[in-house]
């Protein structure tokens, strides 16, 4: 009889789900008045998409064995370009612009992000610059460009429609959360059901084998970084709605958080492995922890230190878990070998 794969393998996602439930219970017990409430749930689902989109944008590059250090800079650049287009179209009355103008402006921002993604992807795929370097360079460059454009000021004054993307509600659910659900569903299809998605995993686990299996490695890599930049753009639109402003260096601390989310979600930093469900669970865990700790009025820097501790604990747990598994496998193999060589009674005598 075939056992379903999910049950056969100890899945990381299952562990994460257990951890999530435990944390939710723990936080609720610590703060029963404020944590397990509808209001808190809604506020968490407003905040979740920002971290989630950044982490997913990071994840798709890690699947191919790369990384996108420029993701936050790309998001800020998107926001700034969106504002520039908006002001060019609507002038002083940018905050009263209609839906069409807002959409055009967002289109401009998205185009800018995709342009960055295309350049990064080209550098990585065709010039064969290591991803960590190409994106590091792009990050530095974009941070500079963002500062030069904004001169360090905060730009604000957006039309209703644009604010609604990040801040609105539909059928009692925050719009960014709805977008997140739709995007995760699309990404699941892309990763599991399309040629590009499968090629991405192949490419990440063994680029040379992928090339000899007729995978268009370069084209897939470029698409990968385009996708990552698309996630940066999405983040930018939602941030614009929630913060009602753009700036050269918003959300810089999320860079490490998104790497952490990938690590927590079980994405292999060397590429080729990682599950979307693990990522979603990881992001939700991060959000629940940070909201929970925030509600306890803890020092934000303490929270930052705590992230560090959590990574270290995870590293240790993964390592020890792996070792335990290996030992068990070794023991099973040895037992099987002994069983094959002698009758079982002798084997027991030999052990004793």
């Amino acid at each position, binding site marked *: 009889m075939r056992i379903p794969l999910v049950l056969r393998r100890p899945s990381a996602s299952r562990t994460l789900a257990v951890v999530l439930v435990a944390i939710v219970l723990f936080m609720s017990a610590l703060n029963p008045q404020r944590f397990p409430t509808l209001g808190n749930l809604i506020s968490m689902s407003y905040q979740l998409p920002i971290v989630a989109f950044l982490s997913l944008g990071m994840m798709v590059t890690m699947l191919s064995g790369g990384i996108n250090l420029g993701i936050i800079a790309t998001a800020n650049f998107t926001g700034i370009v969106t504002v520039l287009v908006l002001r060019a179209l609507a002038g002083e009355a940018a905050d009263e612009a209609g839906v069409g103008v807002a959409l055009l402006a967002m289109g401009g921002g998205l185009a800018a992000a995709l342009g960055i993604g295309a350049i990064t992807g080209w*550098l990585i795929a065709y010039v064969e610059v290591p991803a960590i370097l190409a994106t*590091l360079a792009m990050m530095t*460059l974009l941070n500079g460009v963002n500062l030069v454009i904004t001169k360090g000021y905060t730009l604000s004054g957006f039309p209703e429609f644009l604010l609604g993307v990040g801040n609105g509600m539909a059928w009692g659910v925050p719009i960014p959360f709805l977008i997140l659900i739709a995007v995760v569903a699309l990404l699941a299809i892309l990763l599991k059901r399309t040629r590009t998605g499968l090629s991405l995993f192949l490419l990440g686990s063994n680029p040379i084998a992928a090339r000899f299996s007729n995978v268009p490695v370069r084209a897939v890599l470029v698409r990968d970084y385009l996708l990552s930049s698309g996630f940066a753009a999405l983040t930018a639109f939602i941030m614009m709605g929630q913060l009602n402003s753009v700036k050269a260096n918003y959300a810089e601390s999320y860079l490490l958080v998104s790497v952490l989310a990938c690590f927590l979600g079980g994405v292999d930093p060397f590429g080729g492995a990682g599950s979307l469900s693990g990522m979603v669970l990881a992001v939700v865990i991060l959000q629940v922890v940070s909201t929970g700790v925030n509600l306890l009025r803890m020092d934000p820097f303490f929270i930052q*230190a705590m*992230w*560090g501790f959590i990574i270290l604990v995870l590293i240790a747990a993964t390592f020890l878990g792996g070792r335990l598994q290996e030992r068990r496998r070794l023991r099973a193999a040895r037992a099987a070998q002994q069983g094959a060589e002698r009758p079982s009674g002798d084997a027991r005598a030999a052990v004793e």
Partner: protein
Amino acid sequence: MLRGLLRHNETYLVLLILALCAGITLANPAFLTFENVAGFLKSCSMVGIMAVGALFVLVLAGSPDVSFTAIAQVVEYAIAIATLRWGGNIYVAILAAASMGVLMGLVNGVIIHSFRVPTIIVTIATFNIYFGMLYVITAGKLINVVHPMFREFGHALLFPQTSKIGGTYGLSLMPLVWLAVVVVAWFILRRTFLGRSVFAIGGNEIAAERMGVNTLRTRLFVFGFVGLLSGVAAVVHLSIVQSVVPNIIVGKELEVIAAVVLGGASVFGGKGTLTGTVLGVLLFAILNNGLTLLDFSSYWYNVAIGVVITVAITNSAYQQLRREKARVHVKVEAR
């Protein structure tokens, strides 16, 4: 011989630096004066010292350490407070800072070695812990008054001169500390078995282990050394600015790593030179200084650095690509 030179990344860097210097000097002759050069050498010595450590890690692990700025930040704060309370002299301060740095660096080394995880992930974690705890403990309070010995150390000048407007200038001791660090690092990297081991592990860890390299000891040494350099860098920084802003060093880590990478260190490990690293740091410092002298707003600094890094890594990747293509070609002909 020319072709041999062209194969070195350092040659391009030197050419770039010379071109940059010539351009800036033409636009503003104040650039190539003793006063200005001494000034920017002083201001980049902290980054220069940290870059040496970043080079060691990159060669060893092929994955950058990002926690060294947090280590330097914590050490700077601790040393500023400790010297205020207990006094002492600059040598004791450097020794204490270095030992504290070594301890904090060793934490990285132990975790990375025993759990076999990429350096960048562990150091992201320790970065957050060190920096977060620093703010939790100190509440982010600035220190405006530091022990006078840092002022003496930072203001000590070799070849003092009097400038036209009456101030004195000269070669500060800070670049000399940087130079000493580079010389020591060069000796370790090029003249000891330990240094060879660093390259060997970076090239192929399994092969190195079979050759008899003690990976644990080498790794602990490298991360301890990075910590030590962070401690020294902290004292240098403290002596230059004579105050502690608890988030002033943090955030420079990517710039330092970029300088090292610009200097030709491979992000896959096993390759990198001190000359390249020093040149990378100098290039950034000259860019920064040049932009100031040419009256550009400081916002342009990141753009300039970004352009330089992009061009440099594209160039080196392109060279690599051409070399590989050439190699394949030879093989085909041989058949």
